[in-house]
């Protein structure tokens, strides 16, 4: 299955992926209209150290702890993608506690948000990958994790 992989060697720490993520999940047609004068809440985050930076988002693990821990069945695996059903979520945040990558975060409105590889918003083409200027984020087949 194709997953998002990150190559810190090429990550510039420009944070564009965060903005493309926020835009893709905003449902708006115009980026300026969607993101101007707001604080964004992207599902991908840049981690930065002194000389290194890289993007972190959901790994879509084969045996995901978040899905195991979900008490309502809101998180489930569909064709390898870990998806999230907003209607079922009760906002208990157990998934947030159990994700070892810190890739799930609380969302505005009480429930959680996570990367769904843009399957629900842009048709299976992750916006962070398309927007990365240096191919530091790639979407490719690499065998199972």
């Amino acid at each position: 299955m194709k997953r998002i992989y990150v190559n810190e060697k090429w990550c510039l720490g420009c944070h564009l992926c965060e903005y493309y993520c926020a835009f893709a999940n905003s449902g708006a047609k115009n980026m300026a209209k969607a993101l101007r004068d707001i604080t964004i809440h992207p599902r991908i985050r840049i981690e930065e150290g002194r000389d290194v930076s890289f993007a972190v988002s959901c790994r879509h693990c084969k045996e995901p702890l978040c899905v195991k821990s979900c008490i309502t069945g809101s998180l489930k695996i569909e064709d390898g993608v870990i998806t999230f059903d907003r209607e079922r979520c009760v906002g208990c945040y157990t998934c947030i506690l159990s994700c070892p990558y810190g890739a799930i975060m609380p969302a505005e409105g009480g429930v959680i948000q996570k990367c769904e590889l843009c399957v629900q918003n842009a048709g299976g083409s992750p916006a962070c990958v398309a927007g990365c200027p240096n191919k530091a984020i790639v979407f490719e087949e690499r065998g199972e994790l």
Partner: protein
Amino acid sequence: MAVDFLYPEYEVIRNPQRCIACRVCERQCANEVHSYDEELGVMLSDESKCVCCHRCVALCPTRALKIVKSDHTFKESANWRGDTIAEVYRQAGSGGVLLSSMGNPKDFPVYWDKILINASQVTNPSIDPLREPMETQIYLGKRTADVTRGADGKIAAELPPHLSLKVPVMFGAMSYGSISYNAHESLARAACELGTYYNTGEGGLHQDFYQYGPHTIVQVASGRFGVHKSYLEAGAAIEIKMGQGAKPGIGGHLPGAKITGDVSRTRMIPEGSDAISPAPHHDIYSIEDLRQLVFSLKEATAYQKPVSVKIAAVHNVAAIASGIARSGADIIVIDGFRGGTGAAPTRIRDNVGIPIELALAAVDQRLREEGIRDNVSIVVSGSIRSSADVVKAVALGADAVYIGTAALLALGCHLCRSCQAGRCNWGIATQRPDLVKRLNPDIGYKRLVNLVTAWDHEIKEMMGGMGINSIEALRGNRLMLRGIGLNEKELQILGIKHAGE
């Protein structure tokens, strides 16, 4: 400074309707033009630091930015123009030689743009390169006119060493040090994939790049940086650099700040020491001396590799080339005055040397008249900007061309001409690790391959139009060219007729 005589050259225009304050401009500008005002929640800019490299413009996700030339003006004068006045102010402030980078930007005639290419109509059929074979493969090196037979009567197949190019375009000499590791890797990998060559420049060959040796031309220049036996043996050919089009008659100076770690090891000089290339080779003061170096290099590599000699296009270039053709060199490289550089004194870059078009025509003519054209191949460089320039160069008599600036443009260079500052925002002309990583060779090499492949298609189209199916048949075929708006003398030097003749 209390008084600043200079008003910034550019203005940063930010569209507030579009700016989402993502701060990518701020993070990506090594010149620190952009900043974020937390209090106001808006992006600010200090245009006095802007070099117009467009990094921020290219990465702005909402296209909120553009850079425009300031319309701030001095009182107009055709003699004392704004840039002339600014240079005087700058020198009065610094007391130093003005430095600049890349090619001569002055308004000298570009002869490529005054030459038109022929096409077939009715009486000689044009060729469709998509349906019929079309050859752009060429060989560089000595050509022998004599056919010799061995004792058994068979043709002796021993030829002098050649370079084989699938396309008559090579990547010109740019040293590791003047450009980054990633830029070099991109050029090397592209040359391999394209079946052509890139050139190390005089910075030596990084250990990691020995694997690309069969597609590498290794340079030996006046500083002899990084030259040793395995370096000479690693390359497919050896180039002796006598001069460079951007700065004929002077040497080079890579500041000590750029001589870090790998660059120092590759150049074989101590870290932090300035890399100074003398203006002349101190062992070459005549064609006879040059011949000695040519043959030392051939001897060192068992006569297995062609040796080329690179000179800047200067006034008596034809006579110099004639000497080089007799020196034992296999290839002559002529670099025109529009050729790029990582740093050159502005006055030299803008005022010394001659256009490559005239130099090429003069050299080809002279060598043919003297019957020694086949002794050498001619490679030209110094602003080959498109496939049309390549076709015109070949028709004027070149065997192949080097591209430098065009290759850097493919890698992202925006010709801001600030290489000498070492803060290249595109990761090309810098050694700062955080900037170097901005050029991912996986992307860079592909863009180079795309560029040259596209040119190759266009060259084939133009050749097909002329009814020529082999680039060998186009070489020196000046009847395929006509001048437009050129005077009698220019046409005579170029050896072409005027359009309509």
